[in-house]
């Protein structure tokens, strides 16, 4: 029976020759990942030890923990939260990556997200691993089932195929594509499914933009997203020190729930209104021209990679952030930060008046420099629900790094296609 990428990866994880959508099967992830956060990791570790009586792990190398939240206040609470995590990881012999950047990016840099792999996390943005032909599935508290049993029951998802053709026009990227998909198909257009991307437009897309697209999959209702292997993916996988990998291709006549063709060259910049990313909140950026802003943010697990910083620099080069606007830029990882510094991009951003912060998740969830009640922000963060980045009275618009940078210059929401790039 012909299969999709997700079916093949999950068939291997389930120890089967093949699986079909709708089956409920125990699946064995290659990596079971968490970031430390009070109420999640501390609770799960305590449950493993105290409720399940687990004192040693059969395969500790399959567990990964990142410290990427709550890094920027330097207070006692932060110290205590992270020390609990360090102690548990030490107790169980689990690899811990601390303050190297946002885990969903660091796992790619370190080669954990390699072609054909199956990864779970309690956080849904693990789906960004799909950029590397890995399947990342956010399972919320079912992560405990994986940690305890080494496998967990999953319903095998159907797949929607996206044939991408053309290339993004200047000032447009995959953040515009994901919101275009939601605008066309609805916020449940891929509900309980995997999004599979292929075609010449997919092959032409930069890896950072693929990570951004796959990392936002949940807002279409999808449980994950994955790209077909290509030269870009295989070169990256070979260069990363992540061990052996086995790329997974879809069969030519695999069964898809739907197939959509999208011409990337037709896309225009999209902006999402405060509230959520649902279709009714999705606009073209030029429809919002005139919406004044006070804050702008480039960063998060979905955006803030080198391509996003290059995009911002292309808009901000020789310009200044508008009076009354604060632009915060958070490179997604330390490696991204160092590359951006080496390329001179951060100097361009600083000269324009941007503030550059250490790599972490802290802006995106309102922990670092939270928005004030009167703030109106445009953001490349992953979420724009009320209260997400600070005050519940602040408004959060979402757009690409191009659009955020152009809006910061204009002082109001503006597509980069109008502001222009150097």
């Amino acid at each position: 029976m012909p299969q999709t990428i997700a079916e093949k990866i999950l068939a291997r994880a389930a120890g089967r020759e093949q699986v079909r959508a709708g089956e409920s099967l125990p699946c064995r992830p290659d990596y079971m990942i968490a970031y430390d956060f009070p109420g999640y990791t501390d609770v799960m570790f305590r449950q493993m030890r105290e409720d399940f009586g687990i004192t040693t792990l059969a395969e500790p190398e399959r567990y990964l923990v990142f410290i990427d939240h709550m890094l920027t206040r330097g207070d006692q609470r932060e110290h205590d939260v992270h020390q609990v995590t360090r102690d548990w990881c030490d107790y169980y012999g689990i690899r811990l990556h601390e303050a190297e950047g946002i885990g969903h990016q660091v796992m790619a840099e370190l080669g954990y997200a390699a072609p054909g792999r199956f990864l779970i996390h309690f956080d849904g943005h693990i789906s960004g691993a799909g950029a590397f032909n890995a399947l990342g599935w956010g399972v919320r508290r079912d992560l405990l089932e994986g940690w305890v049993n080494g496998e967990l029951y999953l319903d095998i998802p159907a797949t929607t195929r996206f044939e991408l053709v053309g290339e993004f026009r200047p000032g447009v990227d995959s953040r515009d594509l994901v919101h275009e998909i939601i605008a066309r198909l609805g916020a449940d257009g891929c509900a309980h499914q995997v999004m599979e991307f292929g075609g010449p437009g997919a092959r032409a897309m930069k890896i950072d933009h693929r990570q951004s697209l796959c990392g936002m999959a949940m807002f279409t209702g999808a449980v994950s997203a994955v790209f077909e292997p290509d030269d870009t993916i295989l070169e990256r996988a070979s260069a990363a020190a992540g061990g052996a990998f086995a790329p997974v291709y879809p069969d030519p006549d695999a069964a898809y729930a739907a197939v959509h063709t999208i011409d990337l060259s037709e896309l225009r910049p999209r902006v999402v209104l405060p509230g959520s990313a649902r279709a009714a909140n999705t606009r073209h950026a030029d429809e919002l021209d005139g919406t004044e802003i006070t804050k702008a943010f480039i960063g998060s697990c979905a955006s803030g990679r080198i391509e996003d910083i290059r995009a911002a620099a292309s808009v901000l080069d020789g310009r200044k952030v508008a009076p009354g606007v604060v632009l915060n830029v958070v490179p997604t990882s330390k490696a991204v930060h160092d590359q951006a510094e080496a390329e001179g991009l951060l100097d361009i951003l600083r000269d324009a008046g941007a503030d550059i912060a250490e790599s972490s998740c802290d802006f995106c969830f309102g922990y670092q420099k939270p928005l004030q009640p009167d703030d109106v922000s445009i953001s490349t963060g992953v979420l724009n629900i009320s209260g997400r980045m600070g005050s519940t009275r602040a408004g959060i618009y979402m757009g690409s790094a191009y659009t955020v940078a152009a809006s910061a210059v204009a002082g109001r929401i503006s597509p980069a296609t109008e502001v222009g790039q150097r």
Partner: protein
Amino acid sequence: MSSYPPPPDVIEGRVAWVFGDDFDIDLVIGVENIKTYDADELRAVTMKAYDDTFVDRVRPGDVIVGGRNFGYGHPHYPPMVALRNLGIAAVLAESFSPGFWRGETYNGMPLLTVPGISTAVGVGDPVRVEWRTATVRIGPDGDRTLTGQPPSDRVQRIISAGGSFNLILAEHAQGAAS
């Protein structure tokens, strides 16, 4: 986290509220309150934006009804804790957002996908819900019936156990004993 006993095979109550499409569950208590699990604090804010009388009129066994993609957004756990504290026993919707579905299934809440439900019922309608078969009998005599997608065997076991944690703990104990 609170723990709740598993539901009876037939849940009998009334429709406590009907929500629209893409409903963000955090709005049940308001985004200002999504970090509290305190029962009194939750009760004081539950559904206040929709119906001031909600917390006083809901009885154990009542259900809430949703449209398409129920639970969309970035669902937190306290809103469903607030509803379960009042006795809400199931959610019936046209469809569920996957993140919400997974998180609340873990907590042992029956979430039943029942096409047509959001237009077939109104607030106050009596319902009898046979959750294992996703059969909903509507009205005082139960003379109108809608049938949705029955939960998988695994999900039925999770709900019967009062949540995933209880189920995997029982399975783990069984494995250790055998």
